[in-house]
C-alpha cells in the first residue's frame, strides 16, 4: 500500500515531482561540475602556470643564487662548480617524475660579440658589427627543443621553447642540432647548424637583426651563429644571447657541464608540513616524512632532484611556487563557494516546492491522520517521495554536471576535466542532505497539521 501511494503520487502529481527533480538536478549538476573541476583544477591551474616558467632552480652545491640573480658568471671566482649534463635525464626518474613538466640546463659565459668578417683580433679593435664597436655580452648555452633519451627508456622533448613560450620572438627558436664546426675559431664554418637568439637590448645596441650572422668569441674559441630570432623577454634576459648548449660548452671549454638547470614541475601548495620539511627534512617523524616525500610539494620535488643529480642543490623559486599555491587555493575556494551556494539555492528551492506540495496535500495528509496514521508513517511517506525524486534528480544532475564540467574544462583550460569517482559519493551525500534539509519546513508543517483543521476547517 505504501508503494502504491508513493507510485500514485509520482504518476498523478508528475508535474510537481518533475519540478522538484529539476531543482535537485540543477543543484547536483552544479555541485558535480564544480567538485570535478575543483578536484582537477589543481592540475589544470598548475599546467596553466607552467607556461609562465620554471618554479625550481637547480644549482651546483656551493653556487649561490646571487650568481644568477646578479649576473656574475662562472669562472669569475664566485662559482666554479658545475653540474653534469649527463645527470639531467635522472630528473625524470624521481618519485614525482610525472610532475616534472619541462627542464632546461644553462651554461653562462662572458664573451665578446663581433661580426664574421672581423677576425678574433678584429673584434678587439674599434670596428664591430655593422660598424659598431665589438662588445662584451653575456652568452648563455641552453636547450631549445632538446630530444632526450631517458634512463627509463622513455624519450622527452624539453627546452626553452616550452618553458619560455611567452617570450616575444621576431623569428624562430634556434635549433638544437649538432654543431657544424669544431669551434676552433675558423670563421667560415659554424654558420649553418649553429643558430642563436639575441636579446632585444643586445640586438639594439649591436644593430643585429634576425638573419644576421654574429661571431661569439671567448679567450679560447670563437664561433659564428646565424641569428634565428631577436627576442623580448621583458627582463634581464634581453641583455643576453642564447646559443645551443654544446656550442656554449665548447666556447667555455666546459664540455658536458652546465651551470644550472631550470625545472618546471606540477606542485601541491605548501602547508605547515612542507614548510617544516623545507627547513629540515630530518626533523620530521617517519610518518610525516613519508607523507611529505609522497606529496608533490615543491620542497619534496627539490629534495628528490638533489637525490639523483650529483652535487646539486635545488631551490624553489619562491615567488612562482607561492603564487601558484595562492592561485590554486583561491580557485578551489571559489569552486567550493559556488558549490555551497548552488546547493543552498537548491535547498531553498526544494524547501519551497516541497512545502507548497505538502500544503496543497494538506487535506490528503489530514485524512491519513484522521484514518489513524501517526506522524512517523506520514512523514516517511512524504520523505520517501521526496528522496526518490531527489535520487532521480540527483542522477540526472550528476550526468548533466559531468557535461558542464567538460564545457568548463574546454572553455577555461582548453582540455577535458578528469572525472573523479570521489565526486559520486560526495554528490550523493550532498543531494540527500540538501533534499532532507529542504524538506524540514514541510515536515514541520506536516507534523503540526491537525486533521480537524483541514477536514472541517477547525
Amino acid at each position, binding site marked *: 500500500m505504501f508503494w502504491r501511494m508513493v507510485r500514485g503520487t509520482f504518476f498523478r502529481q508528475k508535474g510537481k515531482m518533475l519540478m522538484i527533480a529539476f531543482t535537485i538536478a540543477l543543484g547536483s549538476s552544479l555541485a558535480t561540475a564544480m567538485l570535478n573541476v575543483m578536484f582537477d583544477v589543481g592540475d589544470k591551474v598548475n599546467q596553466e602556470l607552467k607556461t609562465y616558467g620554471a618554479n625550481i632552480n637547480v644549482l651546483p652545491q656551493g653556487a649561490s643564487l646571487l650568481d644568477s640573480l646578479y649576473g656574475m658568471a662562472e669562472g669569475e671566482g664566485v662559482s666554479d662548480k658545475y653540474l653534469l649534463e649527463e645527470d639531467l635525464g635522472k630528473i625524470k626518474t624521481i618519485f614525482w617524475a610525472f610532475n616534472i613538466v619541462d627542464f632546461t640546463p644553462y651554461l653562462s659565459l662572458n664573451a665578446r660579440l663581433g661580426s664574421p668578417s672581423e677576425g678574433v683580433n678584429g673584434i678587439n679593435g674599434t670596428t664591430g658589427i655593422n660598424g659598431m664597436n665589438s662588445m662584451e655580452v653575456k652568452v648563455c648555452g641552453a636547450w631549445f627543443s632538446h630530444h632526450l633519451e631517458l634512463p627509463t627508456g622513455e624519450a622527452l622533448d624539453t627546452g626553452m621553447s616550452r618553458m619560455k613560450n611567452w617570450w616575444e620572438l621576431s623569428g624562430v627558436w634556434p635549433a638544437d642540432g649538432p654543431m657544424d664546426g669544431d669551434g676552433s675559431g675558423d670563421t667560415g664554418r659554424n654558420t649553418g647548424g649553429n643558430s642563436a637568439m639575441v636579446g632585444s637590448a643586445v640586438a639594439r645596441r649591436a644593430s643585429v637583426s634576425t638573419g644576421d650572422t654574429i661571431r661569439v668569441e671567448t679567450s679560447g674559441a670563437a664561433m659564428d651563429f646565424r641569428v634565428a630570432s631577436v627576442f623580448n623577454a621583458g627582463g634581464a634576459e634581453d641583455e643576453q644571447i642564447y646559443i645551443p648548449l654544446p656550442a656554449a660548452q665548447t666556447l667555455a671549454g666546459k664540455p658536458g657541464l652546465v651551470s644550472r638547470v631550470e625545472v618546471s614541475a606540477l606542485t601541491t601548495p605548501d602547508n605547515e608540513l612542507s614548510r617544516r620539511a623545507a627547513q629540515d627534512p630530518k626533523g620530521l617523524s617517519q610518518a610525516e616524512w613519508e607523507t611529505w616525500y609522497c606529496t608533490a610539494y615543491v620542497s619534496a620535488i627539490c629534495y628528490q632532484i638533489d637525490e639523483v643529480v650529483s652535487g646539486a642543490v635545488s631551490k624553489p623559486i619562491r615567488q612562482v611556487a607561492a603564487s601558484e599555491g595562492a592561485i590554486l587555493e583561491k580557485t578551489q575556494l571559489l569552486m567550493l563557494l559556488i558549490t555551497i551556494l548552488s546547493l543552498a539555492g537548491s535547498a531553498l528551492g526544494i524547501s519551497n516546492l516541497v512545502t507548497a506540495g505538502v500544503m496543497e496535500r494538506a487535506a490528503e495528509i489530514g485524512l491519513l491522520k484522521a484514518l489513524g*496514521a501517526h506522524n512517523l508513517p506520514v512523514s516517511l511517506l512524504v520523505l520517501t517521495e521526496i528522496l526518490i525524486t531527489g535520487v532521480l534528480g540527483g542522477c540526472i544532475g550528476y550526468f548533466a554536471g559531468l557535461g558542464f564540467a567538460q564545457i568548463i574544462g574546454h572553455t577555461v583550460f582548453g582540455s577535458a576535466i578528469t572525472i573523479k569517482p570521489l565526486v559520486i559519493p560526495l554528490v550523493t551525500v550532498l543531494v540527500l542532505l540538501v533534499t532532507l534539509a529542504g524538506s524540514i519546513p514541510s515536515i514541520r508543517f506536516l507534523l503540526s497539521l491537525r486533521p480537524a483543521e483541514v477536514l472541517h476547517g477547525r
Partner: protein
Amino acid sequence: MNLLELKDISKIYGNLKALSGINLTISQGEWVAIMGPSGSGKTTMMNIIGCMDRPTTGSVILDGAVISRENSRNLTTIRRDKIGLIFQQFHLIHYLTALENVMVAQYYHSMPDEKEALSALERVGLAGRAKHLPSQLSGGEQQRVCIARALINYPMLILADEPTGNLDETNEGIVLDIFRQLHREGSTLVVVTHDPEVAEEAQRTVILEHGRVARIARNIHEEVPV
C-alpha cells in the same frame, strides 16, 4: 451498555465558546442524529467525539475509557481502532482507486487485504467500480467508497458528518439504506445533519443551539430506551 458518554463538555476557542456544558450518552447499537443551525457546535462536537479534538473542560468516555485527556498520538490510535469517519466532502485520495482508498484505512490500521476491501465495496454496491479513480465516480459513489472505508476496520462507532449533504435524492436514499442496514447489524451511528429527513431515521435527535443541547427528540418510528 453505554458506548459513549460526554460529561459537561465545553470547548472554547479564544473568546468563542463553541460548546458549553454538553452532556450526552450514546448506547451501543444506537443511531443518534445531531442537528442544529450553523455555528451551533455540531462540527466541534463531532471532532471531540471523533477524537480529532479535545474538550476544554469535561470528560469523554468511549468504551469505558476516559479519552478526553489523551495526547494526540493516543487519540489517533483510538480513532484508528474504534471510530469510522464519513465526511460530507468524501475526502477520497484523488490518485488512488476506490479499492485503494478503502485499503488505505486498512494499511494504517493493520494490514491491507484486497479481498476484504473489495467485499466492503461490494457491501455498498461498488464492487464493479473498484478500479475507478474518484474523478470517475459520481458523488453518491464517492460517498459509498467513503462509507466502505469507514467500515473496513469494523469500528465501534460510525461518525458521519453531513453524509448526504452533497448528494441528490437517489444517492441520499442509497446512503440511508446502507445506514439502516448497518444499524440493523448493530453498528452505533452518530450522524451530524441539517436534513430533518435524515435525522428522522435516527432513534434520537440531539438538537444543538449556541453550543448547548437545546433538546433531545426521540423519533417515533421506533421504540427508544430512555
